[in-house]
């Protein structure tokens, strides 16, 4: 048996193309870029070796601290929100809507296909205050609350950003998780129901454990996506007001390409990669452990 499943030639044919492309286009450039971390300058001015200076700067640059805090805050809040709401939707699809869920599923998925630029424009309009109120402020006025200048303060800008990304991604995670939930055999539920389990207990003891693999994939996926948030921030707030909604990716992009500090930019990218790696390995390991247990 191991002769067939351990056939080196077959492994090479199956794995080879993926590994080759991945190595040439991702791994090589990554290590190439890592090399820049010990240089200062950019392709226009030329590079100068500065040793570990860039890493030292990472610890003293107050903007790094701000960007790091924002990135983590955003990742945690949005991951909980989008996976949570996505899971809720998926449960609704599977247990309440059943066969009728197709239309709702499609509609809820729909925002995912909209270009970021368009979604950001939409949310700017919805939440605007000047020259005229957007829809949200109008609704607030209707219930007697004064208009809010959403993009003028860090907290409200953060809130709008989260709402926007939640709106975009909720349906996507719902579909992803739905695919996992549908795979759970029906007779498992039937026997659980016969045992008297229902509602929350059913979810808690049957649904969650059985959909754990896909739930964990979703979380890993979400964490990595949110830690690397770039487009939506750029399009919605451009990091503002001030730099209060600037994530590491945006700061890295500005540093490398706008400020022309390529080496320092690469150091920031490395920092971000390490964070992603740590978080993922953490989740990955717990998922493996849980799987072997189950």
């Amino acid at each position: 048996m191991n002769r067939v499943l351990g056939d080196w030639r077959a492994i090479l044919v199956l794995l080879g193309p993926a590994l080759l492309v991945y190595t040439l286009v991702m791994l090589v450039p990554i290590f190439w870029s890592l090399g820049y971390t010990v240089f200062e300058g950019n392709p226009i001015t030329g590079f100068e070796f500065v040793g570990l200076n860039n890493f030292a700067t990472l610890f003293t640059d107050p903007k790094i601290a701000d960007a790091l805090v924002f990135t983590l805050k955003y990742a945690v809040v949005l991951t909980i929100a989008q996976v949570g709401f996505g899971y809720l939707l998926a449960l609704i699809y599977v247990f309440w809507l059943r066969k009728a869920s197709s239309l709702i599923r499609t509609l809820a998925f729909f925002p995912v296909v909209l270009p970021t630029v368009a979604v950001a424009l939409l949310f700017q309009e919805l939440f605007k205050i000047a020259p005229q109120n957007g829809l949200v402020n109008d609704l607030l006025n209707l219930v007697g609350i004064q208009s809010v200048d959403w993009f003028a303060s860090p907290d409200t800008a953060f809130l709008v950003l989260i709402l926007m990304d939640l709106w975009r991604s909720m349906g996507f995670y719902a579909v992803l998780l739905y695919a996992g939930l549908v795979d759970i055999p029906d007779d498992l539920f039937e026997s659980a129901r016969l045992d008297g389990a229902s509602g929350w207990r059913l979810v808690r003891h049957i649904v969650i454990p059985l959909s754990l693999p896909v739930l964990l994939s979703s979380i890993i996926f979400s964490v990595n996506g949110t830690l690397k948030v770039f487009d939506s921030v750029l399009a919605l707030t451009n990091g503002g007001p001030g730099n209060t909604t600037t994530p590491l990716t945006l700061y890295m992009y500005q540093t490398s390409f706008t400020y022309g500090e390529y080496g320092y930019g690469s150091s920031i990218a490395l920092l971000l990669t390490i964070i992603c790696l740590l978080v993922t390995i953490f989740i990955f390991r717990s998922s493996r452990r849980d799987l072997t247990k189950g």
Partner: protein
Amino acid sequence: MTATFTDRSPRFIRIVRRIPVWIIVGILLVVVVYPLFWLLTGSLKTQEEFLNNPTWALPEDWTNFDNYVEAWTTGNLAVYIRNSVLAVVPALFLTIVFGVAAGFALEVMVWKGRGPVLLAFLAGIMIPGQMILLPLFTIYFRAGLTGTLWPLIITYTAIGLPLTVFMMATYFRSVPREIFEAATLDGANIFRMFWTIGFPLVRNAIFTVALVQFFFIWNDLLIALTFTTRDDLRTIQVGLLNFTGQFGQIQYGPTFAAIAVNVIGTLAIYLFLNQRVMKGLTAGSVKG
């Protein structure tokens, strides 16, 4: 089920208990549908309407398709859509084929060192795309690939691989090993096993992953911006920037029209794929 037939109250309770769900679904529909409605009506508005009328106002002229004409001519939309398709479809195909094969090799086949290789792929999910731009540009430039769509196809394939490999490995892991072990005892050739057993088993998963990847690379701006300088190579996402001026002026109407065209196109693809996913899902029930 049968017990409740004669008893009215549990059914009544069930209907009452369903009300919150319908409220949630109702809110969801409003929240999702209204912005889309706004987008479509926006594509019929003039610049003056955008600037001077309230956000929720309906277009003054429902038959004003000037924005679409503008988007199609000035916006060069047809060329951009063609480029997007030419870059995304081959990349998607390669990602899926390479990714599924690699996932199979990493999860089903037995060999030393697959842990680290899987981890190496996993690491790719974490790399910020911005980091590989400069080296890649150098590579493509030296290889003489700039000025073609190849940099986009290659980069999209590579960027899509980590997630695809990782997800395919996860799905293969959920397939009971006995199926493959039994097949080897029957003397099946490994490639035939991959095609006839492995591939069909994860067909749903493939459609899901394809869907995810499609929207990832279809909506990409960063890579497309970096590797296309000629107007006739632009993808649709880059093309959308065409309606913004040097000092920040935006032509709202044509922008919305271009987005609407983009959305309708992607919707068609989604509906097609969605149907396939459904077919795959029902066919997959054999497994249970």
